[in-house]
């Protein structure tokens, strides 16, 4: 499986967690997207730095080859999945603590 496929599966998994498993439904609200737009700018910066300087190198066969600020577009999908899973869990634990 290529990074393209695993990144999309990761995003799908994070969406299922947010919408179905934990039902935090962050992707339906504006707080998440406002947060993500800030994180996105920093991701382009730091991801571009790591990729541009060659700290991490990708197998050309594992990615589409579409790059934004040096980083493969798959990294952006990976990052979205990481941030969504994190914030969904954060919101879920917050809700549980408030409920008890």
């Amino acid at each position, binding site marked *: 499986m290529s*990074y393209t496929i695993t990144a999309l599966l990761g995003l799908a998994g994070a969406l299922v967690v947010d919408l179905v498993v934990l039902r935090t439904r962050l992707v339906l609200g504006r707080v998440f997207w406002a947060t993500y737009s800030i994180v996105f700018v920093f991701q382009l910066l730091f991801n571009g730095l790591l990729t541009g300087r060659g*700290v991490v190198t990708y197998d050309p066969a594992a990615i589409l080859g579409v790059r934004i600020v040096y980083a493969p577009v798959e990294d952006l999908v990976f990052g979205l999945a990481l941030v969504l899973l994190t914030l969904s869990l954060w919101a879920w634990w917050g809700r549980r603590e408030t409920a008890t």
Partner: protein
Amino acid sequence: MRHLTYLGVLAVCLLAAIWLEPVLRVGVLRQWRRLLKTLLPVVLVFVAWDILAIAAGHWWYDPGQVTGVTLPGRLPLEELLFFVVVPVCAVLAFEGVRTVTGWPAEDERDRR
């Protein structure tokens, strides 16, 4: 110094967000138990993904730009830290947005 490149990028990333705790009083680090419970599953899932991707040859790290501390699965220490630093920054940003805008998150809407 070159072997500290990745670690340095992570430190700058953390510094770019950590000021929100004292300045906006977002109270993320204060809720350290909730933060730990959030981080644990995220770290487990993404470290597993990373180890599998490294094994599959999807990506690799420049030995000259990492500390050289390698965890099982050929995982550089920096990668483990990445999956702690980035989620912490994301939660700080999330609570920063809530503090500044006063917008409720979806989970709060359910409570009413």
